[in-house]
């Protein structure tokens, strides 16, 4: 066990934890999207979990920092908040929020983060970016909604660790990056139909089982 101080509060935590895990375990919320406990190495792509740590000249992502004895952490400095708000606005510029038709359980993780940061669910002052991607992409037994996806890669990791097969993967690059489904034959579609772990892990309902869709949408 090591002792760390977060926002003036002394915590005693297990030493193998990251700062993010230690805070979440002790009821201190740090915005995060791509963190997944089962992942051996943090993905660190969402850039939301910034914290200030004494002795560092700039905010660092808390999912990549292991706790050390005597560490002094602040989760709400102006620099941290500025980076978090900026990253959140960037994500929202590709995620037009349609709360009424969005099937996530409310409040979704994005709503919680927005409330925590005190910002709206719009990208203001940035504008929405239309990448010209389709509303729905057919993934065999699933539908994928590219304009909801925040590319946290939780689905990809979960699928691989459960099925030992790379059914889901990243495709394209840069601003056009999206998740893709790869059916290599050999009963892959059956494996996928019987699993749905990705659907459950997705924080933004970007992956949906086809069965959940009203027949009017399914064509």
């Amino acid at each position: 066990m090591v002792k760390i101080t977060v926002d003036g509060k002394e915590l005693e935590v297990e030493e193998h934890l990251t700062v993010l895990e230690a805070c979440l375990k002790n009821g201190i919320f740090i915005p995060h999207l791509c963190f997944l406990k089962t992942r051996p190495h943090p993905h660190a792509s969402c850039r939301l979990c910034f914290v200030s740590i004494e002795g560092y000249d700039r905010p660092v992502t808390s999912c990549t920092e292991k706790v050390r004895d005597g560490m002094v952490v602040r989760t709400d400095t102006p620099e941290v908040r500025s980076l978090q708000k900026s990253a959140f606005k960037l994500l929202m510029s590709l995620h037009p929020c349609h709360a009424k038709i969005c099937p996530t359980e409310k409040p979704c993780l994005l709503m919680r983060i927005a409330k925590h940061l005190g910002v709206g669910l719009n990208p203001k002052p940035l504008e929405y970016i239309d990448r010209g991607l389709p509303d729905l992409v057919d993934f065999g037994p699933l539908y994928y909604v590219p304009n909801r996806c925040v590319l946290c890669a939780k689905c990809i990791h979960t699928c691989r660790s459960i099925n030992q097969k790379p059914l889901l993967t990243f495709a394209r690059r840069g601003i056009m990056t999206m998740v893709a489904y790869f059916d290599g034959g050999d009963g892959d579609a059956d494996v996928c139909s019987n699993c749905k772990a990705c659907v459950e892990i997705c924080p933004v309902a970007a992956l949906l089982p086809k069965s959940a869709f009203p027949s009017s949408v399914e064509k």
Partner: protein
Amino acid sequence: MPSIVNRGADWFRSIGTEKSPGTAIFSIVGNVKFPGLVEIAMGTTLRTLIFDICGGIANKKAFKAVQIGGPSGGCLSDVFLDTPIDFDSLTQAGAMMGSGGMVVMDEDSCMVDVARYFLDFTQKESCGKCTFCRIGTKHLLDILDRITKGEGREEDLTILESLAKDIKQGSLCGLGKTAPNPVITSLKYFFDEYVAHVREKRCPALKCRALIAYYIDLDRCARGCEVCVGSCPVEAIFTTKGRKKAIDQAKCVKCGECMAVCPKEYDAVRKVSPPSLAPIIERPPEEKIKEGA
């Protein structure tokens, strides 16, 4: 390399400065008289490199900026000409050694357009993993695009600055951490150019196509010369009542061909910004009748 092996590391370290010993090889391109690869001792000033070794700016133009360190380096203005070239000084100025690329720009370069060009490159290079680089560089590019097209808004200037700073700090890898450098440095050292684009819809370097117009100076145009008419790809040039030539602004695509072909002794084609400065000359009516027929 052979001389380092022959004479030893101490000899090599005796060249250059204390913190950046040795030499560096730069690839100098752009508007200099003698572009090419140059090996210099660390600590040589930019002025020595550009004006002595590379012969200064070509075509008797004035020096405007030098972009150092490849696409993610920074654009430095003339106040940095006496900066020594070494790791620390360049980083302090907002540029970097990077790949040793150096692009020298003369007065005809628009710094907003230059920033847009480099962002276009880095945005395409982004792998798409982390939020700041993937989406942030796209926003920077979109805003710069907007400004060079004359559709920039006042708030764009503050968004550019804060977003660039956040991308630099928040990105996962070195690409995103350095990608905003051209924006940050050009905003810092050439802010007035951004302001001219946004507030006056004017491109001071007469580079951004949407913000310029070509016209023909009737006092200089020669009667009967038809060179520009032949060069125009969209038939925007017509003959005026006085048998001189004029440009139909509605048809002109601003390719600059007429300016390039107009004989030197006349030199009648002019470029202005904003486009409203170009005098409007009506097409003579008989031309219209011909068109209709």
